[in-house]
């Protein structure tokens, strides 16, 4: 078994309104920053032991499917690195 960190990034699907991101963008603009757009995402770092990177990715994928993301509004991706 090898120790991995699976990083799951969950973000709203394109086209789904993100009022918190809009509010954050407005606050940045109020501070004088110039930006075209801003998107927010949730990032989960999952430490786990797995036989190989594929298995670690599969397990993190299932975590995203079953809890971390809501498929109605979210897309997600998984990146695995040895730890």
């Amino acid at each position, binding site marked *: 078994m090898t120790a991995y960190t699976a990083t799951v990034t969950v973000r709203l699907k394109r086209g789904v309104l993100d*009022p918190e991101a809009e509010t954050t963008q407005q606050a940045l603009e109020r501070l004088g920053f110039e930006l075209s757009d801003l998107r927010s995402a949730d990032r989960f770092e999952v430490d786990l032991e797995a036989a190989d990177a594929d298995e670690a990715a599969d397990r993190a994928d299932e975590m995203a499917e079953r*809890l971390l993301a809501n498929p109605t*509004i979210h897309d997600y991706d998984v990146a695995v690195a040895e730890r």
Partner: protein
Amino acid sequence: MTVSVVQFGGSNCDRDAVRALAHLGIDAERVWHEDGLPSDTDGIVLPGGFSYGDYLRAGAMAARAPVMAEVRSAAEEGVPVIGICNGAQIGSESGLTPGAFTTNASARFQCEPVHLRVERADTPWTAAYDEGEVIEVPIAHGEGRFEIGEDAHADLVADDRVLFRYCDADGNVTDAANPNGSTDSVAGVLGERETVAVLMPHPERATLPDLGRSTDGAGILRAFA
């Protein structure tokens, strides 16, 4: 009929639901989620509140609590189930009903009376009303914006599973009368069975005559009578 009002850590409308049901002469009791559903349960309320502190997403944690497997089985057997506010978020997160409830377009918590148009009057939840009738019920939520993918929305409409839409006092469904930016002004939807429904507004807060400005919500809870 004994209605189980399922209480999670952070539920805070469970007592209100029991009081409102008792006022209508309906036997109801609070059930702590870890105790499971009593065997004589023949109605279920998922009450409002902030279960698990709205961690991750509102309703996400409670939706994965073991009791929800029992709730889904009961729903499949035809036991009437209603999710109210946080209970609606739990219901949609657990797959009892389509779509999702997420952050209000205003990005604010909103607590205010709203008008709802009854889109179906042939369900247990709306038998007290006429189709197109306008009722007044309060909302109190920060994450009540109904979102659903385009295809799923088309199915929802084609299957006639929209139960309530936000509207103005005259029943017009307008952007101005949509308090939270919900897709298609949807305030409540049906599950696969008409005996399963969720809605963001609070019928239990519009049932007791001495509690507020409307008792229009009583008709929804009378489904359990």
